[in-house]
């Protein structure tokens, strides 16, 4: 799962090589210090690599245009989420378990679309959109408190950025990139 998410951040050109480097060194560490230490090293490497890789994606795309594309993607997500909220408030009773579940699914679908849209404008934009979604999700959790179930808000913080990256990846695949 961790490798899959990390792979979404990597550029097509270096993805296989970088993951191969990580695997090769992990096996080296495993043979000298054991599986547990190697797994810990691997997790640390992946987590610490996310920042530089995202920054490189950002620079590669031209930062101002990338930021603009990410905001455009977020704007599209906000409109879709508002529209789905209006629709759901008419069709479903608020507070029921089904309501947040459907809302979560709609939010993720909107975020996939936002990531797709952002990627169609700038290659590195879905990564920026994912970071924006994570930050805004945390701020929303702090601001709204108990207005929505905690599981729902945490799920949004985790799944929102992933959905944005999936949308971006779908667009890349459509263009013949990996």
């Amino acid at each position, binding site marked *: 799962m961790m490798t899959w998410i990390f792979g979404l951040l990597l550029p097509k050109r270096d993805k296989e090589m970088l993951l191969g480097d990580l*695997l090769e060194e992990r096996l080296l560490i495993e043979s000298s210090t054991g599986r547990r230490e190697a797994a810990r090293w691997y997790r640390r490497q992946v987590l610490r*690599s*996310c920042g530089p890789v995202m920054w490189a994606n950002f620079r590669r795309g031209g930062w101002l245009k990338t930021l603009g594309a990410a905001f455009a993607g977020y704007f599209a997500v906000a409109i879709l989420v508002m529209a789905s909220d209006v629709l759901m408030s008419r069709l479903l009773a608020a507070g029921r378990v089904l309501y947040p579940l459907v809302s979560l699914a709609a939010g993720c679908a909107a975020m996939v679309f936002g990531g797709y849209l952002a990627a169609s404008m700038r290659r590195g934009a879905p990564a920026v959109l994912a970071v924006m979604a994570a930050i805004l999700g945390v701020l929303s959790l702090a601001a709204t408190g108990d207005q929505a179930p905690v599981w729902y808000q945490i799920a949004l913080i985790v799944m929102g950025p992933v959905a944005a990256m999936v949308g971006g990846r779908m667009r890349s695949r459509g263009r013949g990139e990996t």
Partner: protein
Amino acid sequence: MPKGDTLGEFEQIVLIALLRLDNEAYGMSVRREIQERTGRSVSIGAVYATLERLEAKSYVSSFVGDATAERGGRAKRFFRIESDGKRALKDSQDTLRKMLAGLKVDWRTI
């Protein structure tokens, strides 16, 4: 070297690692070389991001090697320092040397 193209500390370290590793410079070997020599824990992502930046400046070139089984069938990308990269590294080192020339500091007390 054009103005504004000065090398950062980590860029210099990566270029020196490429010089040391010669034909065996790829992501993992560069990362290990830096860690073993400097004692710094470096992420593979930082190494790749720096190499990409250096390649964009034509200081470094790269080519893809063969895939191997211990890498899960994945190929290596080998990197090589180019003459522009060597020149930039020399200029950065010269600048440091000029700044330090004649400076009387007892480094052992720091």
